[in-house]
C-alpha cells in the first residue's frame, strides 16, 4: 500500500520544517507590509503603486529578469547539450569551468568587468587609444544584461545537465526511425521532455536576476530596479516603520511567486516515466566541426571567466589601501589572511557542507514526495519548497531573526540559524535538480524492492537514492559551491567568530580594498575547486555524472 506511515510522516516533517523557516517568517513579513500608522492598512501598497520610480523599478525588474533568463538559456543550453551529448576536444574545461562564474561574489565580478569594459576599462581604453573604436557605454542596460547573463548562464548549464543525460535513448531512436532528422527529433522529442527542467532553470535564473542587488547597483545606477530599492530600504540608515521595505519585499516575492506558478502550470501534467539507465550515446562530430563548436563554447566560457583572471592578477598586485598599483606585484594582499582566513575558511566549509547535505537530502525527499506520492499536502509542500527562491537573502535573514529571536527557541546568534538560512535558501535547487531524475524512475522499481520485503522507507534509501545519486551529486556540488559564496543572508545573521570567506571578501570590497578582496577571492576559488578537482581526478568521483 502506497503512502502509508513512512511517507505521511515524511510529509509532515517536511511541512514542519518549511512552515517554521519559510511560511511563518514570510507571513510575518507580509503582516508587516500591511501595518499602517494605526492598525491594518493597504497604505504601503497604495504608496508603492503611486510612486512612479517604484513602478518603473518594477517594470525594469521584470524586463531584467526576462532578459537575463533568456540570455542565460541561450548560452547555458548549448553548453549543457555539448557537455552532455557531444564528444568535444575541451569537454573537461567546459564541464567544470562554468561553476567558477557563480563562486565569486557578484560585487567583485562586477568591479572586475568594469575594469575591463568600463568607461576607464582596459579594453575600452585599448580600443579607443589604439584603434579609435568607441565601445558602446557599458553603464546601464548593456552592462547590466551582459554581466547578469554571464553571471547566470552557469546555473542553467548545471540545472539542465543531468536532464540532458537522462533522456531515454530509445525515445529518440523511435522518433528517428519514424522519419525525423536530428533537428526534428530534438524539437519534437528531446526538447519537449526537457521542457520542465529548462523551464525550472529559466525560473531560477529569473528569480536570481530579480533578486540580484550587487550588479545593478554598480553597473546601472540609472536603471531603477526593485531589488536595489528594496535592499536600500532594508539597509537604509533611516528607520521608518518598515512597512515600505516590507511592501517592496512582498512585491518582489509576489513577482517571483507568480513566475513560479506560471512555471508550475507549464510543467503540469508533464511527469512522465522514462527509463533511466539507457543514456543517449555521445555524438561524434567531424573533427573540424568539433573544433569549431568546442572552440566557440570554450571562448564563451573563457570570456565569462575574465573576472576570475582579473581577480587572480589583482590578488598579486601591490596595493596601498584601496589603490591597486597595476604592474607591481606583491604578496602583501595575503598578509592579513592569516588572522581571519583560517576561521572564515572553517566556517565557510562547515556551513557549505551542512547546507549541502541537509539541502540535498531534504530536497530529494521533497521532490520524491511531490512527484511520486502526490496528495493535497504535497501540493502545498511543492510551493512552500520553492518559495525560498522568491525571497532575497537579506530579507530572509532579517525575517528569520524576527521569527526566531526569543520565544521558546532562540536560534539567533549561532551557527544554527546561519546553517538554516543557507539550507533554506539553497534547498529549492536540490528539489529541482533531483525532480527531473525522479521523473525518470519507474514506479515499478520501488515496488520491486518493496515486494522483495524491503519497507518503503528503506526501499527509497536502497533503490531510489542510488538512482538519484548523479542528480543529487549535481545538487550537492551546486549547493556547496553557492553556499561557499553565499553572502546576503549570512551577512545579516553572523555573529562574532562566525564570519565566512564571502563576508570577509565583502568587507574588504565594501571598504574599497580590491587587493585583499581579490586575494581572498582567489583563496575562495581555490578552496572550492581544489576539492572538486581532487574528487574528480583522484577518487574518480563523477561530479556531474556526465559519462
Amino acid at each position: 500500500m502506497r503512502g502509508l506511515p513512512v511517507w505521511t510522516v515524511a510529509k509532515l516533517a517536511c511541512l514542519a520544517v518549511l512552515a517554521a523557516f519559510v511560511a511563518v517568517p514570510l507571513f510575518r513579513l507580509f503582516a508587516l507590509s500591511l501595518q499602517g500608522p494605526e492598525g491594518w492598512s493597504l497604505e504601503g501598497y497604495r504608496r508603492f503603486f503611486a510612486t512612479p520610480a517604484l513602478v518603473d523599478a518594477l517594470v525594469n525588474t521584470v524586463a531584467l529578469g526576462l532578459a537575463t533568463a533568456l540570455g542565460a538559456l541561450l548560452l547555458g543550453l548549448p553548453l549543457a547539450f555539448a557537455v552532455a551529448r557531444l564528444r568535444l576536444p575541451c569537454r573537461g574545461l567546459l564541464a567544470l569551468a562554468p561553476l567558477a562564474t557563480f563562486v565569486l561574489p557578484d560585487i567583485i565580478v562586477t568591479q572586475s568587468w568594469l575594469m575591463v569594459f568600463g568607461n576607464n576599462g582596459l579594453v575600452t581604453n585599448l580600443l579607443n587609444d589604439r584603434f579609435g573604436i568607441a565601445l558602446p557605454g557599458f553603464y546601464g542596460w548593456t552592462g547590466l544584461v551582459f554581466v547578469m547573463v554571464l553571471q547566470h548562464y552557469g546555473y542553467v548549464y548545471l540545472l539542465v545537465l543531468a536532464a540532458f543525460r537522462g533522456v531515454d535513448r530509445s525515445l529518440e531512436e523511435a522518433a528517428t526511425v519514424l522519419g525525423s532528422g536530428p533537428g526534428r527529433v530534438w524539437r519534437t522529442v528531446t526538447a519537449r521532455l526537457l521542457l520542465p527542467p529548462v523551464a525550472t532553470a529559466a525560473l531560477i535564473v529569473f528569480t536570481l536576476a530579480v533578486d540580484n542587488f550587487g550588479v545593478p547597483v554598480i553597473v546601472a545606477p540609472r536603471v531603477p530596479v526593485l531589488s536595489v530599492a528594496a535592499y536600500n530600504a532594508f539597509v537604509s540608515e533611516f528607520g521608518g516603520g518598515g512597512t515600505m521595505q516590507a511592501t517592496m519585499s512582498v512585491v518582489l516575492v509576489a513577482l517571483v511567486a507568480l513566475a513560479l506558478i506560471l512555471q508550475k502550470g507549464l510543467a503540469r501534467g508533464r511527469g512522465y516515466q522514462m527509463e533511466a539507465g539507457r543514456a543517449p550515446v555521445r555524438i561524434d562530430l567531424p573533427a573540424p566541426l568539433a573544433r569549431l563548436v568546442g572552440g566557440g563554447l570554450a571562448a564563451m566560457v573563457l570570456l565569462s571567466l575574465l573576472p576570475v583572471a582579473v581577480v587572480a592578477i589583482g590578488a598579486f598586485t601591490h596595493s596601498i589601501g584601496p589603490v591597486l598599483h597595476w604592474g607591481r606585484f606583491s604578496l602583501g594582499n595575503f598578509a592579513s589572511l592569516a588572522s581571519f582566513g583560517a576561521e572564515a575558511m572553517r566556517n565557510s566549509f562547515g556551513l557549505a557542507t551542512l547546507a549541502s547535505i541537509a539541502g540535498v537530502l531534504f530536497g530529494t525527499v521533497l521532490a520524491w514526495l511531490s512527484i511520486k506520492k502526490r496528495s493535497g499536502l504535497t501540493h502545498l509542500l511543492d510551493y512552500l519548497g520553492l518559495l525560498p527562491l522568491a525571497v532575497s537573502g537579506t530579507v530572509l535573514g532579517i525575517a528569520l531573526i524576527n521569527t526566531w529571536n526569543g520565544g521558546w527557541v532562540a536560534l539567533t546568534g549561532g551557527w544554527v540559524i546561519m546553517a538554516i538560512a543557507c539550507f533554506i535558501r539553497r534547498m529549492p535547487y536540490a528539489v529541482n535538480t533531483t525532480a527531473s531524475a525522479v521523473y525518470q524512475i519507474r514506479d515499478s522499481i520501488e515496488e520491486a524492492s518493496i515486494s522483495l520485503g524491503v519497507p518503503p522507507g528503506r526501499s527509497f534509501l536502497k533503490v531510489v537514492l542510488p538512482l538519484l545519486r548523479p542528480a543529487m551529486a549535481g545538487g550537492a556540488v551546486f549547493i556547496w559551491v553557492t553556499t561557499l559564496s553565499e553572502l546576503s543572508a549570512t551577512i545579516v545573521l553572523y555573529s562574532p567568530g562566525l564570519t565566512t570567506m564571502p563576508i570577509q571578501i565583502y568587507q574588504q570590497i565594501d571598504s574599497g580594498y580590491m587587493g585583499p578582496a581579490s586575494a581572498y577571492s582567489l583563496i575562495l576559488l581555490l578552496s572550492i575547486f581544489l576539492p572538486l578537482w581532487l574528487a574528480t581526478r583522484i577518487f574518480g568521483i563523477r561530479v556531474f555524472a556526465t559519462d
Partner: protein
Amino acid sequence: ETAVLYASNNSAAVDALLKVVGDAAPDLEVEVVRGATGALLKRIEAEAAAPEADLFWSAGFPTLAAYGAVLAPYHTRVELPADMVGPDGLWTGANVHVMVLMVNDRRLDGRSMPAGWADLFDPAWKGQVVIGDPANSSSAYAQIYGLYQLFGREGLEKLARNVVVTGSSSNVYKSVAAGEFAAGITMEYSAEAYVAGGQSEIRLVYPAEGTFLSPEGMAVVKGAPHPQAAQRLLDIMASDAAQAAIFAATWRRPANDRVDVTAIAGLPRLADLTVIAVDQDAAARDRDQVLAIWQEVTAAAR
C-alpha cells in the same frame, strides 16, 4: 571580559581599534560583527528581545536618534566637545565626516578642475558627477541638505541635471577612483585613502563655498549582554590614543579634538576650512521635505 562590537566602519578602522584595545586593555576581548550601518541597526532592532551586541559603531547622529529606542544612555569618562555627546548621553561622538569633492583629473577631459560646488552645475559636467542616494545614506543626505542650505532648490535642480545617483554610497569614491566618473561628492576620509594610497590622479577639493560636517556617533546597546565591558570599550574608543590611531589608519577625523590631524596626516585643520554650520536637529526635522524636493528635481531631470 568580552564585548561584542557591531561595527559599520571598514576593516582598517577595526584593525586599528583592536590594536589600541590590545595595548590598553589586554584583558578585554572584542568580538566584531561588521556590516552596513543600516543592516546592523536593523539587526539590533530585530534582536531587541535578546540583544547580541554591546556596542554599535558608528552612524550619523540623526540615524542614531531614529534608533534611540534600542540604545542605552552612557556618559563617557573621556572629555569631548559638548556637541559630540547625544541627548542624555544616548550616543557619543566617534568621528566627523567632512564633505568634499573627489576628482579624477584623468577624466577631466578638458574641463577645469572644480573649485567649489557651483562649478559642478555647469552643463559640461553632465553625467560626470556621482553622488550617493540621500534617501538611504546619512552622509549623502548631509551633502544634499548642505547644498540645499547653500543654493536652495535651484541649486539642487542644477545639480540633479548633472549627477548620477548611485544606490550605494561607497560606490561614489570607488567609481571616481576607477575613472568611471570625473568627480564625486563624498567624504574626505574615503577620498584621502586613494590619495594616500598613491593614486596620483585623485584630487581632494574642499569647496570654496564651504564644506559641511556630518558627525558620527557610537552607542551602547540597550540590554547589552556585557554592559560593563561595553562602557569600558566605549571609553577606550573615545580616548586620544584610539582616536589618533583610527584617524591615522582611515583619515576619519576624530570627534576628540585633542588629536592633531595635520601632524598625523597632513590634512588641513577643521579650523582652517570654511565650514557651513548645519543644525543637525533641523536637518533631521526637515528630512522628509528636503528628500521630497530632491525626488522632484531628479525626476524632472530624467
